[in-house]
């Protein structure tokens, strides 16, 4: 059975034609006869993946998640390295970002924009925000410092921020109101300009 499948796969690769007539080859049985499904998946309308439209080549090394396969605790201990978790309100995943390889808040925003590809950076006056163009939601970068307080990103010198930042969170603008040390008289904060 296996050599037949190999032959078919080989033929289809060399001829450049992707065959769809490949039955589900469970050894020695008759396929489970459920109503509506007769003969393996050749009847099911599957559009098989076309490898000519393969996903783009893996991005440059530094940006590939989990490569090279080094455990986090090794990364943080050996190199001058500071990985912190990054979350976005409403998204299920957390990511990790190395603050040591960034040198400014602008770098940080760019990296976050790259990481959460649905978000784009948007500058209004001195504010740093990211926006989801799909739903118009604005996100403000915030961080938890060594004391466990949540602060707006951008108030302290960059080096000091890297030192004290434990984790990052992109909060929706509405959630972020009242955070950090924003003084009410500062005109740039609290303005509701849309981008």
């Amino acid at each position: 059975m296996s050599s037949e499948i190999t032959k078919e796969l080989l033929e289809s690769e060399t001829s450049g034609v992707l065959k769809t007539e490949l039955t589900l080859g469970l050894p020695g049985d008759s396929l489970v006869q459920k109503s509506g499904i007769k003969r393996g998946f050749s009847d099911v309308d599957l559009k098989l993946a076309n490898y000519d439209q393969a996903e783009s080549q893996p991005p440059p090394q530094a940006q590939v998640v989990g490569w090279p396969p080094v455990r986090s605790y090794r990364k943080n201990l050996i190199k001058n390295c500071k990985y912190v978790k990054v979350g976005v309100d409403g998204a299920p995943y957390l990511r990790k970002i190395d603050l040591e390889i960034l040198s400014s808040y602008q770098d940080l925003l760019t990296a976050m924009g790259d990481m959460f590809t649905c978000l784009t950076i948007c500058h209004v006056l001195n504010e740093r925000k990211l926006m989801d163009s799909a739903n118009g939601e604005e996100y403000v970068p915030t961080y938890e410092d060594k004391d466990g307080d949540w602060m707006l990103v951008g108030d302290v010198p960059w080096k000091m921020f890297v030192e004290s930042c434990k984790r990052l969170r992109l909060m929706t603008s509405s959630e972020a109101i009242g955070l950090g040390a924003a003084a009410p008289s500062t005109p740039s904060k609290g303005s509701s300009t849309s981008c």
Partner: protein
Amino acid sequence: MVYSFPEEVLEYVFAFLSSDKDRNAVSLVCKSWYEIERWCRRRVFIGNCYAVSPQIMIRRFPEVRAVKIKGKPHFADFNLVPERWGAYVYPWISAMARSYPWLEEIKLKRMVVTDESLELISKSFKNFKVLSLSSCEGFTTDGLSSIAANCRNLRELDLRESEVEDLSGHWLSHFPDNFTSLVSLNMSCLGSEVSFSALERLISRCPNLKTLRLNRAVPVEKLASLLRRAPQLVEFGTGACSTEIRTDIFSNLVEAFSGCKHLESLSGFWDVVPAYLPAMYCVCSRITKLNLSYATVQSPDLVELISQCSNLKCLWVLDYIEDAGLKALSSYCKDLQELRVFPSDPYSAEPNVSLTEQGLVTVSAGCPKLQSVLYFCRQMSNAALIAIARNRPNLLRFRLCIIEPQAPDYLTLEPLDTGFGAIVEHCKELRRLSLSGLLTDRVFEYIGTHAKKLEMLSLAFAGDSDLGLHHVLSGCESLRKLEIRDCPFGDRALLANAAKLETMRSLWMSSCSVSYGACKLLGQKMPNLNVEVIDERGPPDSRPESISVEKLYVYRTVAGPRADKPDFVWTMDEDGALRFS
């Protein structure tokens, strides 16, 4: 004939069987042997916490004393499994608290452990002895306080490589003054400083202490005092050794080490100032295991130390050792069985050290007992791999990571197919293999043809087509775990080899070309598998069926679909419908 033996005799005989394989075989002989065996099985190993439920385990084995459970897939170590994926231990602890009051040992790997679980452990098992949490997360030092305070007969507390929220070092002080049973303590993953006097007193009153792995926060000047109180230690891990060298510290350390006549294993050495290393020379000749993978010292200093360790069996080291250091290793350490070389600067494009494929070739030639290799490097050639294969047909584990994805043979610019092909052809007992570099479907043909004892295979950025995956699934008879990332493998090989997946523990595929439609079909056809799609982009139903899923995790199970899935995991159901938990 078997019926003439009373149960007690059979039970007595079965007690000599420790391996799970043997016990499983025994239990298949006949019903009465199954019954006798299940009542006297004391140790259970669960390789995938979702393959079976606590209730099923307890129902079959009512008198268990030791459990070992593994949770997340291996690629979780490299951040490929999202947070909140699962592997919660609490349901297991809670069920065992009710049914195994005499439980003594819990060993967990890649599971989420909460303080609540730890507290429940500490209060439910009166004779609790061994807690080992390897690469676990989800708990704080408060949970450790419960263990320390309540487990009166604790022998082992091993937190290796776990991610612990470190609230303070105060947990250690919760061991009662009359607590003396400690045999093994590994706190190397913790950050906070523990009370040094509490640590000293703990060590002084535990005469059976054999393993002590300190955390980074214990400075080198305090080590001598600890070693003097525990000269019987067999395994010792230092803290940071970065204090500027002083004569008194050094001579105290020499004296303390020379009192340790039983030391076999050393680790720690964070930020070690090279001048401290000679303090250990007096124990080197007995050392069999040396973990220098946090020691950022240069090759000459490493060689000085290693050259004294003639009985070394296992070395973990950074690539600072360089080819020259590995050459020295191969000439001084003829008993070497395991070598792991970690990258000091994994993200720089240019090499920062002079470590190449040559170092590994030299060790493979000079160390006849070498069976286990993990090697990070920046260049490799087919010639080197062929040499390694010919030198060391006794290899059991070969994990090579060439740092640049899809790097070809640097001499010929060809793929590394023939090199890895030589590895699987010569190393007939090979159980574990990780590939890297530029690889076509051909390497998988070699693997499928030769790697008949291979149990675990890890692939990244390799192969051309489904044929590659098909070779592996159809050829590797002993395969239990297959983990794949960023390979152009899709539906056909997976579906054509669906039955194979029931003979394996698990399959992981991320950033490949498996369509949602194929996942659904697989789930329909294979009721004994959980086919789980992990996707950040929302329900797979909201996209065309031909779109590839982000991540796929398939595993055999007798427990049915998970009931604790997060909102980004979907089980492909028998009904062809999406199942939400």
